């Protein structure tokens, strides 16, 4: 009887695993079939207005990049504070927990928040607002990685730095950050992969534009928002463009993730 239950449970859990994995691969396969069949050269050379994706790809990339430029310094320095300067005080523990909570905050709420503080006072949507929303999403992730990675640096390195009389900020920048560089870079890469696929914070902050633009003060094209709009259109051709965009986005995110994984593996070898 015991053995029977054991068999049953093992089979059930294997089946559950197969079911889950099957579903997940079904998604990937349909996405690839639909996406690859819709991809052609025209998509990369034309803007959305001419049924291409060029401006969307560029826009999404620029938004995510600006978010990195805003979010990474703040997040990294905050992480350095938590690990190096706070000496595990109550306040640091509090900030640490808060940042974890913020990491899982609903992204659409962050969108509404940025709408309230940026879009509403200005009066119209803008690329900057979208970038700020993404940066807010990114900060807690960077804080978490920096915090974790600096925690892995052995204390001896710090002591060695202090022993030769270097001020603390020099120890941090020249020794500790260098030692944790790979880990932090990987973390930032993964954070980048996460925010580049975000839609909800951009919906009412950066808007969407059908044209090629580099003006961040006005509505700005973004791939994810465009996918959301295009996929619900009755026009077959536009839906196919959405599939192509979705495929490119997924591939990009997956490649960045694999890259991050690869870098960590190389380092630990």
């Amino acid at each position, binding site marked *: 009887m015991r053995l029977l239950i*054991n068999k049953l449970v093992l089979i*059930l859990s294997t089946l559950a695993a197969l079911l889950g994995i099957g579903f997940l691969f079904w998604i990937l396969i349909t996405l690839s079939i639909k996406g690859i069949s819709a991809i052609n050269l025209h998509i990369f050379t034309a803007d959305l207005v001419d049924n291409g994706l060029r401006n969307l790809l560029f826009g999404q990339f620029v938004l995510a990049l600006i978010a990195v430029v805003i979010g990474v310094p703040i997040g990294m320095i905050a992480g350095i*504070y938590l690990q190096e300067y706070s000496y595990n005080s109550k306040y640091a523990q509090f900030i640490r927990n808060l*940042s974890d*909570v913020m990491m899982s*905050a*609903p992204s659409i709420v962050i969108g509404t928040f940025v709408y309230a503080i940026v879009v509403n006072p200005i009066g119209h949507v803008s690329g900057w607002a979208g970038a700020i929303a993404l940066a807010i999403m990114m*900060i807690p992730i960077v804080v978490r990685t920096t915090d974790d990675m600096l925690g892995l640096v052995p204390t001896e390195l710090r002591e060695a730095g202090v022993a030769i009389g270097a001020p603390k900020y020099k120890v941090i920048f020249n020794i500790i950050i260098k030692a944790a560089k790979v880990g932090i870079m990987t973390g930032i890469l*993964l954070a980048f992969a996460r925010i580049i696929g975000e839609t909800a914070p951009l919906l*009412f902050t950066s808007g969407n534009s059908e044209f090629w633009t580099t003006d961040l003060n006005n509505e700005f094209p973004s791939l994810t928002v465009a996918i959301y709009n295009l996929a619900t259109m009755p026009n077959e051709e536009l839906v196919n463009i959405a599939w192509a965009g979705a495929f490119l986005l997924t591939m990009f995110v997956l490649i960045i993730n694999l890259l991050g994984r690869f870098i960590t593996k190389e380092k630990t070898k």
Partner: protein
Amino acid sequence: MESLFKRLSWISATTILLILTSIFVVLFLYAKPAIAEYGLKFLVDSRWGVEVSQPTKPQVSPSTKSSATKATPTTTPKDDNIAVNDEDIAVSDEDIAVNDEDIATDENVAVNDEDIAVSDEDIASQVPSSADEAITADDDIDIDETSKHTKVIYGGLVPIVGTILTTILAMFFAVPIAMGIAIFLSEIAPQSIAKPVGIAIELLAAIPSIIYGMWGLFYFGPLVASVFGGSSVSLLVASLVLAIMIIPFMASLTRDSMNTTPNVLKESAYAMGATKFEVIKDVVFPYAKKGIIGSMILALGRALGETMAVAFVIGGVFTFPKSLTDPTVSIPVVLANSFAESNGISLNVLFYLALILFIISFAVISFAKFYFLRDKK
């Protein structure tokens, strides 16, 4: 330089606190008109965007006095002036309204008053009606009131229920499968299979949620509809898509905490002749209990705030789902769909909803953090 950098790092860390508090404050400030208008009744009101006739003016203000004043004009039409005065007291904070109604008893001035009072946004809606009422004051008030006094009622119950239902159903579907995957990966599968599958699961957790939504709309929704009936956008489809989305996340977190069980414990159980199931049930689960429950709650928090995966497949209809295959709506979807074309009070209502969502998810995640994942650090 040293102290400068120290200061700077402290400021950066405090930015996080600042952002979180300002999210609360800003959402609250923007939601305030809606909170003042509908109060906590918003949470249990199932009407959305319904125009209802409004018996008396003071109902616009949140005071409960409206019931008292409501009765007066209907019982004795001759006592109209007294009734109006009663209302004046009820809305005494709105100065212009008071002046307006005082003079409005004189029919000729009423129109002028209307012009003056239009400038005040808050009471602009009620002024024309009060002027109308004044003009026809000697006739029949009841008819006038029921036909002219309308306002749009917003209630948050449908989206709130929708959010909670989709989340609970999604958890119901996701937990067994995620547990299965985690058990399979950490206990059953040999290392050569567990590793690539584990990596695949983790990669799938990184796929943007909009992809899941799109797949649900075009492939999964029609399939579910053909099996269970109903339309291809429904509560059931939404929760299934949500479940599929959180499975990889939950599975990899659960596997990680199950892997922390020391091998010595498992080996001693096996040495006693325990079967694999007994080892998992009696050794691994108790040991990793906190981590597993914590990972479930984190996934729950993720499901609560998920927008894109749900927006495609839930339907966006403001009705209670009578069965699993009916379309309904959830808070993030309301926000995503109606935010762009809202202004005035309806925008405030949306901020109210966002605030509710934020508070719910904040509470859920903090709960998970402080009670289950605390000693993981």
